[in-house]
């Protein structure tokens, strides 16, 4: 065994010598990402359900069942108010919800378990990598899932509604920028929630955080439609989901009223920085005694 051990110690030398700290960080980071991909691949079925169920049911009920009901339009106040096709309003909104929800499901919920009983995050924290990078990896991996979740909404919104969606992309670069910013921001939101909420209270976040930010996130109605209720229109501005849905609205369905793109980008960047800072700080506080 001693012989084997000596050979082994030498064999490890290349990895030690393989270069600078940057290379070391990069490989550790890639390792973490790969681990998450592996686990996601194994849990692909729950992932698909998680990603599809909400937009599918929403579209099915509001854009397929309701229009088929007699007087369905009257039951659907939003579409009446908009004078627009409700499926068109819903497309960007549901994408925003999918993005936000992925951030919660991919970061906040697993973190609750890993910080809670099992402390299984420990081995990843012990990577030869600054601890903040472990938190950043969580955000980026969640962003990847968010983008997939948002992409899934597209075909659903195309096939399910009884009236076609009017989507039109003028500026692809803008759409991609919004998608990426929204996804990374929602990963940061998940990290902030996962590190602030006590693990045993994680079940509460659906009622306390997820529901309010969804329903007050301009998901089911454009922001300008809130003009009649001024206090609410101002109040919802602290909700990052507003900028996600408005951003997607301006990129995908520009025929609907939406905020100014520069304001949307600016606010998304602001929330990204704020939530990343809060999330990473919370993560460090949790793992380093």
């Amino acid at each position: 065994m001693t012989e084997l051990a000596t050979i082994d110690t030498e064999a490890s030398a290349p990895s030690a010598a393989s270069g600078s700290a940057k290379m070391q960080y990069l490989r550790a980071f890639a390792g973490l990402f790969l681990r998450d991909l592996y686990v996601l691949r194994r849990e692909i079925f729950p992932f698909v359900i998680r990603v599809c169920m909400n937009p599918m049911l929403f579209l099915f009920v509001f854009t397929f069942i309701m229009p088929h009901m007699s007087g369905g339009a009257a039951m659907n106040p939003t579409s009446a108010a908009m004078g627009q096709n409700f499926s068109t309003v819903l497309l960007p909104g549901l994408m925003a919800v999918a993005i936000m929800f992925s951030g919660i499901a991919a970061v906040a919920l697993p973190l609750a378990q890993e910080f809670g009983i099992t402390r299984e995050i420990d081995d990843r924290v012990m990577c030869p990598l600054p601890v903040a990078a472990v938190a950043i990896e969580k955000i980026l991996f969640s962003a990847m899932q968010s983008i997939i979740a948002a992409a899934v909404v597209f075909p659903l919104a195309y096939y399910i509604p009884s009236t076609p969606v009017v989507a039109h992309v003028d500026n692809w670069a803008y759409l991609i920028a919004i998608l990426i910013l929204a996804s990374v921001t929602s990963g940061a939101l998940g990290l902030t929630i996962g590190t602030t909420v006590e693990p045993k209270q994680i079940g509460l976040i659906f009622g306390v955080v997820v529901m309010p930010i969804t329903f007050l996130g301009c998901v089911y109605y454009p922001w300008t439609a809130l003009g009649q209720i001024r206090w609410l229109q101002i109040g919802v501005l602290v909700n990052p989901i507003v900028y996600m849905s408005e951003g997607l609205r301006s990129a995908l369905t520009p025929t609907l009223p939406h905020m100014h793109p520069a304001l949307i980008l600016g606010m998304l960047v602001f929330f990204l920085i704020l939530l990343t800072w809060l999330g990473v700080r919370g993560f460090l506080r949790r793992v380093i005694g």
Partner: protein
Amino acid sequence: MIVEIEGLRKVYDGKQRVVAVDGIDLSVHEGALYGFLGPNGAGKTTTISICTTRALPTAGRVRIAGIDVVKSPSQARRCIGVVPQYNTLDRSCTIYENIHFHCLFFGFSRIDAKKRTEKLLEQFHLAERAEAYPSQLSGGLAQRVQIARAIAHHPKVLFLDEPSAGLDPQSRIAMWDAVRNLREEGITVVLTTHYMEEADELCDRVAIIDHGKILVEDTPSALKNSVGAQRIYELDLRSMHDIPQLLHKLERQQGIASVETTQRGLRIFAEGTEGLLSEVVHAANPYGLKDLTITEPSLETVFIRLTGRDLRE
């Protein structure tokens, strides 16, 4: 010196201010099997957490293989393997993947990681359970996987925090064997324990810790010799009355190094054993001798001598 600890302090400021580590200075030389022995709450785990970059010290400095763990934690982690008290195996990954990904985190190529994982599974007799998930393993097996994972990246120092806590006697002995083998591979091992047999059996050197301070530090045999006795007689007496008189009498007896009072009677440290027992019994009988235990000095005795308390208290 592979592990150097200087003036280490850790204070938790909260509602209740807790001084977990109160000025520890220590060095461990390469290849050693070093033990921190002390009761629960003595500051062992905190010290290990700081050494392994999982906690920040309030004051002092720790260097592992010359690398400051506070200044460059990610570099220090390359030299460190950790087996924490609790099972931190990744529940979403199999045993194989737990070790394999650990190798990838430390920059192994996929081929090297595969080789290393297979070798470790073999070495720790885990090959059959490679595809099992951590939740399917017994405590002893999980501990073995944790050790295998901790040394996968060829660390210079392996830290084991209470490695035998919660293990059945058989698994504990298997774990001891595994730890001894590591030492043959040239890995320095630092462990914490509150089992004095473990420290005695495994370690080359032992630091006895209490209330965040090192009380004494030496080889187990030197520590036991420091008691200055070959046998210890514990006398259980019916009445504590007149004890000083008996104590005085026994102290003058030839072959007795020292005598001290305990809650239940007296503790006699005997230098020789020749004919002493009957004389002790004879002397103690009038004081209502209920019971008598004879032990050889152990690390527990050393701890009791230093603190007046039991390790388990």
